[in-house]
């Protein structure tokens, strides 16, 4: 846990279903997706941080038309999720019907999950807690 976080490892951690955020060494702020500079104090030293996996739903869309790489997966949700630790991430949203987005309520509690896509990638994902 002491090595300097990099984007390559951040993405590999998601592929390995072991999501970790950045944490500012100076002020402790949790940051994800990665930033080279802390949004709070301007610090540039980062370390890895485990997160609780709890979050809530800020907003979402359902993608129907996608680039070739993702078209087979449509329709799928992409959501903005606020983690308990305060940072917000983009993630796939699971466990809700993509044909009935009008039923999905904002601000509901979510828990961390992963989705193995047909594209071959593993996506950061959340589902209703």
């Amino acid at each position, binding site marked *: 846990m002491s090595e300097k976080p990099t*984007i390559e490892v951040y*993405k590999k951690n998601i592929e390995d279903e072991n999501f970790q955020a950045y944490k500012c060494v100076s002020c402790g702020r949790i940051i994800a*997706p990665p*930033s080279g500079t802390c*949004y709070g104090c301007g610090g540039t030293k980062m370390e890895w941080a485990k997160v609780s996996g709890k979050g809530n739903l*800020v*907003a*979402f*869309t*359902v*993608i*129907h*038309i*996608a*680039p*070739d*790489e*993702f078209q087979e*997966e449509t*329709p*799928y949700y*992409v*959501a*903005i*999720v606020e983690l308990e630790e305060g940072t*917000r*991430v*983009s*993630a*796939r949203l699971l466990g809700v019907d993509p044909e009935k*987005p009008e039923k999905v309520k*904002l601000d509901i509690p979510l828990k961390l999950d992963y989705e193995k*896509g047909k*594209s071959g*990638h593993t*996506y*950061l994902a959340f589902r209703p807690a």
Partner: protein
Amino acid sequence: MPLKNTNVVSAYQTKFGRLDGITLREIFAEAVDGATNNAGIPKKDIQAVFVGTFIPEMLVHQGHTAPLLVDYAGLRGVPATRHEAACASGATALRSAVMAIESGIYDTVLVASAEKMTSVTTNKATEALAAAADDEFESSMGLTFPGVFGIAAVAHMAKYGTTEEDMARAAVKAHKNASTNPLAQFQKEITLEKAMTPRYIAWPLKLFDCSPISDGGAALVLTSNEKAKQYTDLPVKIIGTGQASASMNLCDRNDLTAFEASIAASREAYKMAKLGPKDMDVAVVHDCFTIAEIIASEDIGLFKPGEGAKALRDGVTALDGDMPVNPMGGLKAVGHPVGATGVKQAVVIYRELIGDAGANQVANHDTGIMHNFGGTGATAVVTIFRRSDV
């Protein structure tokens, strides 16, 4: 202090749409000729060119476009630099041109732009457009451009009660205004029912909420006070300009119902012009999606947050309304050749202010505001124009 020395003295837009058989450089050259020779401004008077184009590398396999384009357009030897800020490329080129004149380095410069998007497949064009979002953390999980604006729409709907029908009204207005604009890609009015056709691109955005893939170009000549009257009796002054950036990732924004860079850029432009939203007679805003027009009209202060949809419903933003927005049809119906859009928007303001907008002329036309943003609002540029005789 309001800017004092920058005058728009000519403006030209090519036809927007699918321009089969016409390449990027030919589109660019038509725009340049339209704003120079054909407007009575000799090319030899142009001291520098500010080029707006987004991603010719992917669309037509061409980099280093500025010297190539100006050479083809008969301006060999003139210093030329390309400005890239995704959909705000045009307005960043314009802003740099304004700063060049205000600095006193040049008297007369050209702002010229073009994008050729239909020479590749729609999927390839979509991939090129996606380069304006964060590839590592947004595009790589399948979040598309319509998707990002779909998220903004969901947030706006939840907070303010904006509806899919409200957004459809923006499309109906755009097509109505474009129906009398011969340069528009779509010149047919559509009904509200048609605009509501449930062909979802990124829920809640449907086909008619999205601007199209287009080819096109536009150009402007800017000059100092000393030279302006050589070219026209009625220059239009640029009196305020503002620009701001925001996070590339939508998830890093605190408020998804507004675009903070648009708010910051407009504040700077109003402050510089010593004017406020109530002083504006006409607005041209970046309606890449219908929800973007509603939010932009709030972000630049024409309406309070959450009241953009009501203004649209009440006809306030119609061509004959109290605060016309996108009087010639916007990106939605005129088309969106990405790098050319910000220059085309300035062409619209110029034509409206000098009273040359034909069937699309707004009633009051002393002062206008233009809002152009890039990607998902990571770059925003706001420019305020006023007719020189006001």
